[in-house]
């Protein structure tokens, strides 16, 4: 099949799958009066209340978890990257990053409790796997000339240190900075499962219907994440790091009992039939049938509808970011809207929508679609502004229809396929909000202290991510789509 055929076929398959998924998903708003909540929320945004105790401490802890977690992961990733061609290292990194930060946190909490180590590792572990892959790509894509000027007998590590690392260093720093931004999102969201970051405060205030305080939390979050490139200076890193470590070290948290790790490893995660005597296979079959399967189906359906929405938002939204289409003022406004949408974590967005619309897949679809659509649109807008157009090219929507959209169609495909894997991961955790995806079953078992089941479900979730990643890679290859690894998609 040629690349053109593959794209045409892929397009119609995508439309069909999205429609089927739409038909299968429950999108009904269950809240009779969404307008009341919306109005109250709007009033909260107009009258934010920054006076509550713990607000600034929560903000500081959010930054501390993000910084320490991401920098730790970057260091691990840097050590792993040169060995990434090794199947063991590769498999290890892939496994680390196929499990979402929130799931890692749920698991780690059984060992390290609500202490700082949980937050640090929940971010640090999956990010290490991501860094290893991206750094390996960056190192291998450096110019060859310096390395080939060295004698063949140069030790590999020395060669990488001298002739590859310095050449990739700027890109490595740029990527790490982008990841710190992601880390802030992850760190805030960790609050939803009990760590004392901004997410915790947001959830508490919402539950008490204190919308002015909730709005203040969101404002503080934006005040941290929007100018991250201004305050995150590399020469200040040591200073930040010391402050962050101190903050985490003095943090008070409920103590864990002695031997939590040993108990976790030798008892908790051992399948119940092996511990108590009984048949392993029926236990596993039942778990897969009654929890893993429905969870996976809902996860896939949610991801498909969300991806379709993200694609629509991206396709119709990105021209708004191009001044030649929407004018200078229009593109500035659009830029502001998209920045907010891609800065707020989709989980947090889903939580807010859930409070307004009531429980159904709709809040999650909207959150995932808006957040991911805004990211794709942002990247498309960036590329579109860089396109070399003929001087007499049209303006407005004609430019979009005749130049931008056709020229960017390959990129749109590639970005959507990249995002698919991320949306699957994030769809799984939406279950923690009470929707029927894998996260729902994982949290249920955590609460019942059935960690053996949790581990099995986490493996299912990791496998699902890997399968989607594999299909996405294959599709991109057959459609001849390629993006640089440093683009902010991974």
């Amino acid at each position, binding site marked *: 099949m040629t690349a053109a055929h593959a794209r045409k076929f892929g397009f119609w398959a995508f439309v069909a799958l999205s429609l089927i998924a739409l038909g299968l998903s429950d999108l009904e708003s269950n809240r009779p009066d969404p307008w009341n909540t919306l109005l109250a929320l709007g009033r909260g945004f107009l009258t934010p209340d920054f006076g509550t105790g713990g607000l600034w401490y929560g903000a500081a802890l959010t930054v501390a978890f993000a910084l320490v977690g991401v920098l730790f992961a970057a260091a691990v990733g840097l050590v792993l990257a040169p060995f990434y061609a090794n199947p063991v290292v590769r498999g290890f990194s892939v496994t680390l990053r196929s499990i979402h930060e929130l799931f890692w946190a749920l698991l780690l909490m059984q060992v390290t409790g609500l202490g700082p180590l949980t937050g640090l590792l929940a971010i640090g572990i999956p990010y290490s796997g991501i860094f290893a892959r991206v750094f390996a790509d960056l190192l291998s894509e450096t110019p060859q*000339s*310096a*390395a*080939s*000027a*060295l*004698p*063949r*007998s*140069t*030790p590999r*590590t*020395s*060669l990488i*240190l*001298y*002739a590859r690392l*310095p*050449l990739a*260093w*700027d890109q490595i720093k740029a990527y790490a900075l982008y990841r710190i931004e992601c880390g802030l999102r992850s760190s805030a969201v960790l609050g939803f499962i009990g760590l004392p970051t901004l997410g915790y405060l947001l959830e508490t205030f919402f539950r008490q219907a204190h919308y002015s305080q909730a709005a203040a939390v969101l404002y503080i979050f934006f005040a941290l994440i929007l100018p991250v490139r201004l305050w995150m200076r590399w020469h200040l890193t040591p200073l930040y790091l010391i402050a962050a470590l101190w903050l985490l070290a003095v943090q008070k948290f409920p103590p864990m009992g002695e031997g939590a790790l040993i108990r976790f490893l030798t008892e908790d995660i051992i399948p119940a039939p092996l511990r108590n005597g009984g048949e392993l296979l029926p236990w596993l079959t039942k778990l897969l049938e009654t929890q893993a399967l429905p969870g996976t189906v809902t996860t896939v359906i949610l991801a498909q509808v969300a991806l379709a929405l993200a694609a629509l938002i991206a396709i119709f939204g990105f021209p708004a970011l191009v001044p030649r289409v929407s004018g200078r003022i229009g593109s500035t406004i659009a830029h502001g809207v998209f920045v907010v949408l891609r800065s707020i974590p989709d989980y947090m967005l889903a939580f807010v929508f859930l409070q307004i619309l009531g429980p159904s897949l709709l809040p999650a679809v909207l959150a995932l679609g808006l957040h991911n659509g805004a990211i794709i649109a942002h990247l498309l807008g960036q590329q579109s502004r860089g396109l070399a157009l003929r001087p007499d090219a049209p303006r407005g929507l004609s430019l979009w229809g005749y130049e931008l959209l056709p020229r960017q169609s390959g990129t749109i495909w590639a970005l959507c396929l990249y995002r698919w894997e991320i949306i699957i991961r994030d769809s799984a955790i939406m279950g923690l909000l009470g929707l029927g995806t894998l996260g729902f079953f994982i949290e249920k078992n955590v609460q019942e202290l059935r960690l053996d089941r949790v581990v099995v479900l986490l493996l299912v979730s990791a496998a699902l991510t890997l399968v989607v990643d594999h299909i996405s890679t294959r599709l991109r290859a057959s459609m001849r789509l390629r993006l640089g690894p440093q683009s902010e998609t991974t």
Partner: protein
Amino acid sequence: MGGIAHLEKRTLGWGETPVLTDVTLDVGIGERIALLGRSGTGKSTLLAALREEVEKTTHRAALVPQDLGLVPQLSTFHNVYMGRLDDFGTLRNLGTLVYPRAKDRGEVGAILASVGLPDMLRKPAETLSGGQRQRVAIARALYRGGAVVFADEPVSAVDITQGHHLIGMLHERFSTSVMALHNVDLARVHATRVIGLKGGRITFDLAAADLTDALVAELYA
């Protein structure tokens, strides 16, 4: 034969397309070979092939490639030190990246001064001019040392007096050399043997003293 490298009826090139066909060549110890010919006739290809041959033996080779192979972000010291990475362990190399030893700094500093770059140890390579970068690449080869140096237009970016001086320094350090040269006068002064490349093959291979103006005129015609 006692040679340093030997090619027998070889076809050389990148991938499918041959650049040079039917190449037979011996490089003897103590020879100073100049490769002449217009650009694109395969001088770099021949140098690469000879280097491959030497890498298979126990002879130590140093290199001044045409694109220099410097790491722009690193200091001139580190770019020169890179010539000996394979002599030291990884730990020592890692340490040197963070903090160079005084002894290494002195040694590299002396070599840099001798090629006309005094007091420039800390400057990143990307801040240097074209001629200065070429000197750093030559300094890296001098620091490495060995039985033979392969140099591809090593002095194309410096003036002719400096060019003579730098090639003289390479010849003091290496008993054997193979250099692609853009300037026939440099070849006449420094080489013992000259090889002309044209139309995908070797057109002459003689003692430098036998190089006539007519041969040169025809080579570059």
